[in-house]
């Protein structure tokens, strides 16, 4: 075990330039993946912020008894898709209209009778804010006799749906492509370092070292390089994030960084490629001296 560690670390000492080069290569390959992940995560976040505005508004007939409204509100709140039901009275609607529609402030001020209907504003749970679920909720709302009209911006939600699907598909494909490129580049880098030590493997085989013994230091070295490369990539990605934060705004909030679980996954990815890349390269040398 001690020899394993000693040999693995000695490799860095004996070939510092090559080691630094391979760690940098792994780092930058994973950085590309990290940057992409950063873009993907923020696009998703932006979509989520936009989605939060998906809302179904049910306009009530004038003179609907408050008890019916209260009862229906409870009913609607119990729909599986529904997150929250907010009752907006006629007076409140007018107050809002006066505040928000500045141009019509004067017109609204002089009204003898309030022309605006009361309404129920229904926001949907995460995962139900797509065209199908929204339409289903709207259809059910229309079943209530005192609900006059239901609005939810069908076209807008359908566009959002399409955007979400495209973003998901494109994201997946580009993500896989980036990951594949990283795997290839890292694989080649690791193979280069193993190749540089082909003579060592040859001598080990010749004097009767077991395959397990020969593999050990290389696998450890590969995993360490993957780990360090992963950390370099995280540092670079975080640096980029810090630079961009404040420059780019999502709908209402700042851009976000990867979650710690995603960061950990990225580093594990580096370690795994380092390990597997070494394993494959060493096996080739073990097969033919």
């Amino acid at each position, binding site marked *: 075990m001690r*020899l394993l560690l000693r040999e693995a670390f000695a490799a860095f000492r*004996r*070939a510092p330039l090559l080691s630094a080069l391979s760690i940098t290569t792994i780092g930058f390959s994973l950085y590309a993946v990290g940057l992409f992940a950063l873009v993907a995560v923020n696009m998703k976040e932006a979509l989520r912020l936009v989605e939060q505005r998906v809302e179904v508004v049910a306009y009530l007939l004038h003179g609907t008894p408050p008890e019916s409204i209260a009862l229906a509100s409870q009913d609607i709140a119990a729909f599986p898709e529904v997150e929250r039901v907010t009752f907006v009275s006629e007076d409140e609607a007018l107050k809002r209209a006066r505040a928000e529609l500045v141009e019509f402030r004067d017109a609204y001020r002089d009204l003898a009778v309030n022309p605006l209907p009361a309404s129920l504003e229904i926001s949907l749970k995460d995962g139900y804010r797509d065209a199908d679920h929204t339409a289903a909720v709207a259809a059910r709302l229309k079943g209530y006799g005192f609900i006059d009209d239901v609005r939810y911006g069908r076209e807008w939600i359908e566009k959002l749906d399409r955007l979400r699907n495209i973003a998901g598909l494109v994201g997946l494909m580009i993500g896989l492509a980036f990951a594949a490129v990283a795997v290839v580049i890292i694989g080649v880098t690791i193979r280069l370092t193993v190749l540089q030590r082909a*003579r*060592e493997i*040859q*001598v*080990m*085989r*010749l*004097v*009767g*070292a*077991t*395959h397990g*013994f*020969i593999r050990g230091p290389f696998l450890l070295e590969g995993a360490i390089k993957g780990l360090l490369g992963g950390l370099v990539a995280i540092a670079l990605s975080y640096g980029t994030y810090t630079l961009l934060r404040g420059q780019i705004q999502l709908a209402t909030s700042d851009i976000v960084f990867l979650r710690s679980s995603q960061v950990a996954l990225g580093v594990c990815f580096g370690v795994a490629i380092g390990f597997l890349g070494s394993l494959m390269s060493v096996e080739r040398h073990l097969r033919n*001296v």
Partner: protein
Amino acid sequence: MIRFAHVSKDYPKGAALKNVSLHVAKGEFVFLTGHSGAGKSTILKMMYGELRPSAGDVRVSGYSIGDLSAGDVPKLRRRLGVVFQDFRLLEDRTAEENVAFALEVTGARRDGIPARVMRVLTQVGLAAKAHAYPQELSGGEQQRVAIARALVLDPAILIADEPTGNLDERATRGVFQLIREINAAGTCVVMATHDLDLVKQTTYRTIELREGQIVYDSGAEAGAAAAEDDL
């Protein structure tokens, strides 16, 4: 110690060995001679388990090479020492570290390594250059380090593939003398060489190969008789 019985080795391009049979007894010194491509290296590679016979049976130090499992190869090699024309030293390690490497990677006890390394370096006459790197050593000295590395595991057989092929005359004499001493101490030696002057200097058994076949064996009968009881 070593027995080849009707051994052939076929490659897509043609046969490298054709029906070769030979016995090498414990403690014997055997020269393998012949032109390049005659099959010398093929025979040596079979001895240390790098190649397997296409037909026939090869036994080395109790192992049947044709049936060697992946786990048996390291065990066989720990009983052999192998040296090459190109030394195959690790350039980034000193003479001492090159020799110690063989012990370290075969799991020898760490506290015994320095003494064992010094013993063989003294034996090959390089104790004073233990800390030199290969590029600081002459060709003859590098081959001595390679021999020390082969010896440090106390092999029963030393396999030498053109060990003097890259050396000048003086270095050749020194290295050959060293190999003779190793043999005199009881280690069986199989040495492939082009150098007929070396062969003529001694009365050691000589096996000449031509196109994958043995065309001359100066000690076939003696070898066969001796091999009967030590396999």
